[in-house]
């Protein structure tokens, strides 16, 4: 049966070991890519003809924003899988993702507002993207708050998974309603270099950063995942072996 390999793959000891083995393979490329992206973005890329060197905030802001959304999606999908197939490992992925996603959402907000000051003349404008990002941050806080409210890990896993799935349905609605709202109020919206013809010297470092941040998330996720998997095991003998090292 196809299910046997699937279950073996998703078994806590296998995940624990694989995550441990995978961590350096994600962490080192992430570090290299981020350093390369930094050199490319901060040093090699030319200044923007409108925003000068201020646009260079994009190289950390945009990948953070990407992570904030991607991680929420992963969290909700993992939670949904855990809910349907009662897979502890999936819940562990969701639990491990939440703080990472929340912290990058916060980074997005701070870098966005730092970018906003030279562009708009104010640290905070009710720009649709930043506003959606702020709401996303509240959703992360709610998710983690709900998790923390339950002492029993199993129940916290299942309850928060329901919230994450509901949130996943709601995130696009919130986003489009906020964009719609903003279009009525003619808010400032020059945040992104939305031009399709970004020169390669600008674009390549950005793409490198996207990849680097994603791998970084993968590495941190693997580390947290090992901890979360251990927290969910009670008597398994493999834990004895695993913690000896």
């Amino acid at each position, binding site marked *: 049966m196809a299910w046997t390999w699937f279950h073996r793959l998703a078994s806590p000891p296998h995940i624990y070991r694989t995550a441990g083995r995978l961590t350096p393979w994600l962490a080192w490329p992430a570090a290299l890519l981020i350093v390369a992206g930094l050199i490319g973005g901060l040093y090699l890329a030319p200044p923007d003809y409108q925003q000068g060197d201020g646009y260079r905030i994009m190289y950390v802001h945009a990948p953070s924003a990407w992570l904030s959304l991607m991680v929420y999606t992963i969290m909700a999908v993992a939670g949904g899988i855990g*809910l349907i197939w009662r897979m502890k490992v999936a819940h562990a992925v969701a639990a491990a993702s939440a703080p990472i996603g929340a912290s990058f959402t916060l980074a997005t907000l701070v870098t966005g507002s730092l970018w906003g000051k030279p562009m708009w003349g104010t640290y905070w404008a009710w720009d649709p993207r930043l506003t959606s990002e702020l*709401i996303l941050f*509240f*959703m992360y*806080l*709610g998710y983690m*708050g*709900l998790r923390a*409210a*339950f002492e029993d890990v199993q*129940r916290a896993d*299942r*309850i928060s998974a*329901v*919230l994450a*799935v*509901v*949130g996943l*349905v*709601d995130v696009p*609605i*919130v986003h489009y*309603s*906020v964009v*719609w*709202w903003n279009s*009525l109020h003619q808010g400032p919206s020059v945040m992104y270099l939305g031009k399709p013809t970004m020169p390669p010297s600008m674009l390549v470092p950005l793409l490198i950063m996207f990849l680097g941040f994603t791998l970084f998330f993968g590495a941190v996720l693997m580390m947290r995942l090992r901890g979360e998997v251990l927290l969910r095991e009670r008597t398994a003998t493999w834990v004895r072996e695993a913690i000896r090292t």
Partner: protein
Amino acid sequence: MNEIAAQAPTEPLLMSQSRHAPSSLAVARLMLLRDLKLASRKASQLVQPLAFFAIVITLFPLAVTPELPKLRHIAPGVVWAAALLSSLLALEFLFRDDAQDGTLEQYALSGRSLTGLLVAKTAAHWLLTGLPLALMAPLAGAALGIPNAALPGVLASVTVGTVTLSLIGAVGAALTLGVRRAGALLSLLTLPLEIPVLIFGARAMKLAIAAQPYGAPLTLLAGLAVLGVTLAPLAVSAAVRINLE
């Protein structure tokens, strides 16, 4: 002592659900009637969110300005923010009483669709809190200087919007059913999800005040309500089941 001599049972044990079970519609009706009857026996719980709504509305003329033309300008925001907050207040007793006295558990074990029963409960909740709120909204609007011609628009937007508020609120109430002092957490969970309602609702009201057609945002509000009716009950029953564990 009462005469309780062994009397032969009048009917055989029901070995299957079959023909003895009332229809789903009858069950939903029974549940609705039950909640209405219960509410009628403790009316103070119903009055409190309405009083809260009135007080919040009263704060704004005192805090901002008593000049009606200026109040009219912020009226949509004030009415909607107050509606959101008072609907939140009313959520506390949506499932909690039934969970505490064990009746919710009995419904979960009744062999009937828990989703259906909870939809009926949510409908009762809307009738008892959402609808009165909607009926009060034109009064509040008039007090804030909204012209009489715009009051039907106020009524329509709050009526449609509170349906979604009740549904999202039911999800929040179900998620936090097992949490002791859930007030702050409940608002952190539900308010971000309710932002689209706020945006479309306030927009519809604003257009109504400006004597412009407000059909578009009202349609969007109705769309949210339809989406809520189809998806929220699933999340509610999943969350209730997990919290009953």
